[in-house]
């Protein structure tokens, strides 16, 4: 039972599923998602809110999961890249990222897609400038961003007509 000592029960909704997990109160949401729940699609790059690789959607807003303590998600709704789509039913953003060549090493991709999704929920027809602001918390070292912006526009309701 040593496993449970000092741990607290976290109950929250992850990708539409009611989830219960014992967490160390010092752990971040990022760590619980990756290490306790095996949701490794959410990436880690800095653990201090700089890179945006760990972006998930909590209560409809994009958050850096490395800056959210796991217990702050108590009773909340969290969405990760694993909840976005699957092989035979891709989310429009996932499809657009592939088609536009917006994926290279792919390490920033889950965070990019989650930030884009949060943006599109608030703004269905973003301009390029609005996309840039929406993704300003996400770094990519491979693509140079242009193709990512194109993919987000394509994945929006406007279908890429900017």
């Amino acid at each position, binding site marked *: 039972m040593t496993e449970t000592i000092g741990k607290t029960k976290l109950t929250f909704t992850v990708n539409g599923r009611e989830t219960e997990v014992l967490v160390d109160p010092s752990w971040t949401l990022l760590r619980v998602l990756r290490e306790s729940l095996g949701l490794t699609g959410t990436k880690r790059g800095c*653990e201090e809110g700089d890179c945006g690789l760990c972006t998930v959607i909590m209560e409809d807003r994009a958050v850096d999961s490395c800056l959210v303590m796991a217990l702050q998600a108590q009773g909340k709704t969290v969405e990760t890249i694993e909840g976005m789509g699957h092989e035979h039913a891709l989310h429009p953003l996932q499809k657009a990222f592939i088609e536009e060549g917006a994926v290279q090493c792919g390490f920033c991709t889950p965070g990019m897609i989650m930030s884009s999704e949060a943006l599109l929920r608030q703004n269905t027809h973003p301009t390029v400038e609005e996309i840039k602001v929406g993704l300003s918390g996400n770094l990519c070292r491979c693509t140079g961003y242009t193709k990512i912006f194109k993919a987000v526009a394509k994945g929006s309701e406007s279908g890429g007509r900017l």
Partner: protein
Amino acid sequence: MNIDEFSCVGKSVPKVDALSKVLGTARYAEDIKMSNMLYGKVLRAGVPHAVIEELDVSSARAMGGVACVLTARDVPGINRYGIAFADHYALAEDKVRYAGDPVALVAAETEEIAAEAIKAIKVKYRLLPVVSDLHEALAEGADRVHDERENLILHSKTRKGNIQEGFRKADVIVEETYTTQTVDHVYMETESGVAHIDETGMLVIQSANQCPFRDRRQVAMVLGIRENQVRVIKAVTGGAFGGKDDVTVEVHLALLAMATKRPVRLVMSREESLVSQSKRHPIEIWSRWGATKEGKLCAMEGRVYGDSGPYIGLGAFVVKKCGIHLSGPYYIPNLKVDSYSVYTNNTFNSAMRGFGVTQAAVAHESQIDRLASKLGINPLRFRLINALDVGLTNATGQKCDESVGIKPTLEILRQVVLKDPELKNMWEDLD
């Protein structure tokens, strides 16, 4: 074969692994979790140059949840590796040579315990003078980074034609020194990996790397085992840009997995990555270029000093390449370039995109602009006059016999400028 008959060449095809990457299912090294897995951590020196007077790991070893603590004494094979020259210590022996030098390794049941154990290791350093400036490092009687070797790693020479004669023809000469700074690759994925010993006794390392076979050779040497007892697998890698060319976590993972006979995961924090892993060389370039009043380059002389930090890695080749490429994509009939790669106690520098050529470009493009302005020739035209072309020889005397892209590229640029009235005004003399 007609281009239409190819399925991929000349066509836009979806990247093979894009699907797993947009789904979040691609498995990077850090995503691998094995049962009974330990967490590794490295104690870094934190001081740039010092003698290790005492290294006491006893309290760290005695901590509950610590599976092993390793120092240089626990290395079973040769405590050194390197792609071309084995000068890189797997674990520091008598001294540390830069702030990122590894001093001890820990494997523990949790990341928290591993971090606590690292803190419990006691090291007493006697600080040594820091070799930081390239010219001081090369001076007579300089303090040495490696006691048994001088600080000059490699002096390479590029020679072509006769520079005395070349400069005699020059109507203008421009001489200048350029310095570039250290640059980190900042691949989004930090250095990471998992090692285990499989059911056949094979040591298996899955890591973010660029050259699994080179890593395997180096790991086998440090462990004192045969190469065919090691398997290095390149996991899906989150960017590398040259920074994962050298060994990063592989040797340490191998030592920990061998010592504990359990799977071990080692993931660097961003801070550890910045402090300890290879970077782009800061390079100092002195150069002197001559051209005739018609705008023809006639001679160039240069000296290139590259800071390799305390280990060579691929450094000697990077600096040599910087020298070879100092003339850029231009034809210069007479040139003389000397390049020096140097040991210092600064951060470790090795491969990064461009491999020395990026630094050379800072110098040659600036020299070209200065000459053009001195001569009153449009800088684009000046480049067109001197660009390499089929039939000409480059700095090492190699004759370009097909497909030289620089002229057509500049030509396209010229067309763009001509079409834009504003640019055209700014850049007269281009028709």
